[in-house]
């Protein structure tokens, strides 16, 4: 599946009440294009902090929190895996869209080609962690991931090329934060 297909599938599986944190770069832009919703927080910077922002939400909210992460992004903030695995919030669902590259900056190779991210998540203490290779039944894997007891981690392989990149999100950062917060009141 492509990044766009995985993101559309995941957003389609969620309910209105679920909270989403979308990683800075292509993932946030694609999430906005696929299905803009008030309870998605779009990151614009702070690479490496997807899981940590999601953890702050998961600790303070009862709703399901879904982190849409990238492989390079996760590698930058690997300590976030220890935090989630150690604290074990049951409502946190961590997805890595793994293209083995830094797509937003020109496709430079990432170390996720050598490092088994799901094995690291499992060792850190996630209650459920799997890796899903290309054409290995991604749809089923995504459904199983969201049905598992959290914290649950799925590393899903996606294609590295990006023929139809999503444009920048036409909201100001302040609007993004205000809208998200207001949707919880």
């Amino acid at each position, binding site marked *: 599946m492509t990044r766009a297909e995985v993101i559309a599938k995941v957003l389609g599986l969620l309910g209105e009440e679920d909270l989403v944190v979308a990683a800075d770069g292509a993932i946030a832009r694609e999430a906005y294009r696929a299905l803009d919703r008030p309870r998605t927080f779009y990151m614009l910077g702070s690479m*490496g*902090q997807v899981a940590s*922002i999601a953890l702050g939400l998961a*600790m*303070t*909210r009862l709703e399901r929190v879904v982190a849409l992460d990238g492989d390079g992004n996760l590698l930058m903030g690997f300590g976030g895996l220890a935090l989630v695995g150690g604290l074990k919030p049951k409502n946190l669902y961590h997805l890595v869209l793994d293209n083995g590259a830094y797509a937003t900056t020109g496709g430079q190779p990432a170390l996720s080609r050598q490092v088994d991210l799901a094995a690291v998540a499992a060792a850190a203490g996630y209650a459920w962690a799997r890796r899903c290779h290309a054409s290995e039944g991604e749809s089923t894997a995504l459904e199983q991931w969201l049905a598992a007891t959290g914290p649950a981690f799925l590393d899903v392989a996606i294609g590295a090329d990006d023929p139809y990149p999503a444009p920048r999100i036409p909201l100001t950062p302040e609007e993004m*934060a205000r809208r998200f917060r207001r949707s919880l009141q």
Partner: protein
Amino acid sequence: MSASRRLQALRRGGVGFVAGVPCSYLTRFFAACEALPPTAFLPAVREDHAVAACAGAWLGGVQPLAAMQNSGLGYCLEVLTSLHLMYRLPLPMLVSDRGAADDFEEHRILGQRTRALLDLFEVPWRESVIGGEEEEAEWLLAASRGRGGPAVLLVGPGRDS
């Protein structure tokens, strides 16, 4: 558990989530944090993760507080600028004030530039005084909410009350 008047004052001011990395100048404060409910205290592995989690708590409708040694400000800079300052997310911070001339040398280079660093990013800051917990908690929460962003209370040696 050792009582922390500072934590009590901040809790009364509305703080419902604390994330941080310990500093020996904040031993009493962190000891008191360990007695908080498990969903109200995040013992982070690095300061940038702590402040990012605080952003999540604020988005979730809970007043956060970050606590750390001033050396951790370096790790936080990208998150404070591209998350808290850019999205205008209030973040009160307790930051130890290490780096005086008689402190260990590993604390001096960043420690002696802590105020200049905060000024560079127009982050409001104050130094804590003995017995100032109540008033300082009020100031810290209000200062972070002013424009929406980080505000720092610097905690020097002997101020961890």
